[in-house]
């Protein structure tokens, strides 16, 4: 704890980052129920009004919808997807990477080759093609695809983490008392690799947000009127001059959340990586 505090003091940016993350979490959990406007409500007397007018804290878009409500509501879907993808991909990554790294040999070679192949397609391209193929995307497909696209990378991280522990003597000690592979992998090794894996999860979290936003921007993300942040940016790009807030605030939302999470992830890696 004292260590954490010491590191935090030397990385003061972690404080605003934590506040921002907390803010968005809070927004996602309780925000939507506290909004003066529903995220789809069209206030046709206030189309593209500037922030502050007509009770619209961040102004409205071309359909008179409240930007603030949409952003707050949007935090829900983006955080859900990002959380789920980072968890899924890490889970799948840990299972795959651990299995491959632990058993080594042919399994590992096969795994590495498969991961090479999967990694050869950039995640964004893969997701875009698949979502394009599927046509319509919802939270489930989006989560699934982004998770799959990210799994090879997390699997490699997990495998690397496992390999750094696999040949340490306490693993041999466990073997010599006849422990099962599962026990060794998940009871002996996992707790010691949890640091890099958690760092990876948080990093994935940030990447997922960027990815979902980018997919929204490319028009293969969630369907309107779900207020997806990336989609809001592209939707309102036309009115960037008439109503810059409609582009600015969603962009700021994306940027603040991703930067905050990246800072957090960075901080976490400093805490977790002991020898510094």
């Amino acid at each position, binding site marked *: 704890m004292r260590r954490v505090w010491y590191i935090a003091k030397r990385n003061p940016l972690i404080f605003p980052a934590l506040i921002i993350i907390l803010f968005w979490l809070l927004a996602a959990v309780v925000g939507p129920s506290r909004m003066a406007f529903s995220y789809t409500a069209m206030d046709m007397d206030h189309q593209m009004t500037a922030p502050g007018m007509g009770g619209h804290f961040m102004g409205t878009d071309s359909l008179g919808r409240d930007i603030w409500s949409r952003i707050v509501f949007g935090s829900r879907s983006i955080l859900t997807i990002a959380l789920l993808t980072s968890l899924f991909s890490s889970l799948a990554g840990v299972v795959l990477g651990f299995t491959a790294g632990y058993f080594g040999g042919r399994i590992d070679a096969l795994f590495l080759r498969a991961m090479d192949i999967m990694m050869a397609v950039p995640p964004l391209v893969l997701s875009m093609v698949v979502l394009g193929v599927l046509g319509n995307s919802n939270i489930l497909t989006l989560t699934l695809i982004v998770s799959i696209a990210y799994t090879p990378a997390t699997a490699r991280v997990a495998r690397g983490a496992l390999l750094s522990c696999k040949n340490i003597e306490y693993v041999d000690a466990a073997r010599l008392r006849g422990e099962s592979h599962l026990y060794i992998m998940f009871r002996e090794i996992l707790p010691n690799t949890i640091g890099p894996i958690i760092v990876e999860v948080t990093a994935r979290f940030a990447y997922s947000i*960027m990815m979902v936003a980018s997919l929204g921007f490319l028009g293969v993300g969630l369907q309107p009127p779900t207020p997806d942040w990336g989609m809001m940016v592209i939707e309102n790009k036309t009115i960037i001059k008439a109503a810059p807030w409609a*582009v600015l605030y969603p*962009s700021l939302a994306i940027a603040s959340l991703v930067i905050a999470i990246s800072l957090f992830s960075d901080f976490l890696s400093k805490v977790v990586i002991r020898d510094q």
Partner: protein
Amino acid sequence: MTFFRPFLKRLGGMAITLVAMSILIFLLVELMPGDAAQRVLGQSATPQAVAALRESMGLNDPVWVRYGRWASGMLRGDLGTSLYMRGVPIASIFWRKVGNSLVLAMLALLFYVPLSIVFGVLAGVKAGKLTDSIISFFGLATMALPEFVSGIILMTVFAVKLAWFPITSVIPIGESVWNNLDILILPALSITFVMFGYVSRMQRSSMISVMNSDYIRSAVLKGMPMRKVIFRHALKNALLPTITIIGMNMGWLFGGLIVVETLFGFPGLGSLTMSAVKTQDTPLIEVCALFITAVFVVSTAITDLLYGFLNPRIRYPGGS
């Protein structure tokens, strides 16, 4: 001999990856809902017309026959014909766009590689100081901004407000990218933004670990001036992981191109892929995806070889 062996091995590995990848892409795209023939003829076409087209397009063959035909076409350099622009050979559109994208990618590389290495080294040498904090935060922030956000920012500042660069990156008719490098600046900068973060952070941490290494201690304690320590002793070793990262991120670069090219309307591989997906032009999607994959695989292989070449431990293996 020592140099050729890994080369051949890489080549074999590359081939396997590419073949597997092509199968994957082909299957994935062929599994698209909807019938290609129907798509060509539209919803109002008669079933006979659709059936006839199916037959003539060879869609009735088993999937592996179709894959074989497609793959052998690819090997011969025949990229097939577009489904959407009926009868237009893909090659006639494709290579020009690839060329455009490569110019853009090269320019971006030209921007971000030296930039991120210089700043990464600087941050690494000044680790813990204010310079480091500023560079690191800037790197993190740029990295955390999706390309389209940084692209829009760049666009509003440099194209709309200052009008230094064109707002869209359309190539004037009858000209090539080469005469219009100004249209590339903003897209290249958007990519630079994102990649700068990755590469400079990598460079920083490898610089730090090198600067903490025993041989740097040796160099300092030999009385070498700081300049010599950094440039002669540290940099060569600290660059190795960075080179790997740059090579590995080629895939990322192309992913980024899709967003950036779409945003700036640049006629490159990225926007071609995007429009292929939007029009569900399956043969074109396949070619684009395969090409991006190939770029990644080849650049990874080159990186590996380069790494081996630059690293004496791999170049001259074995003890005395």
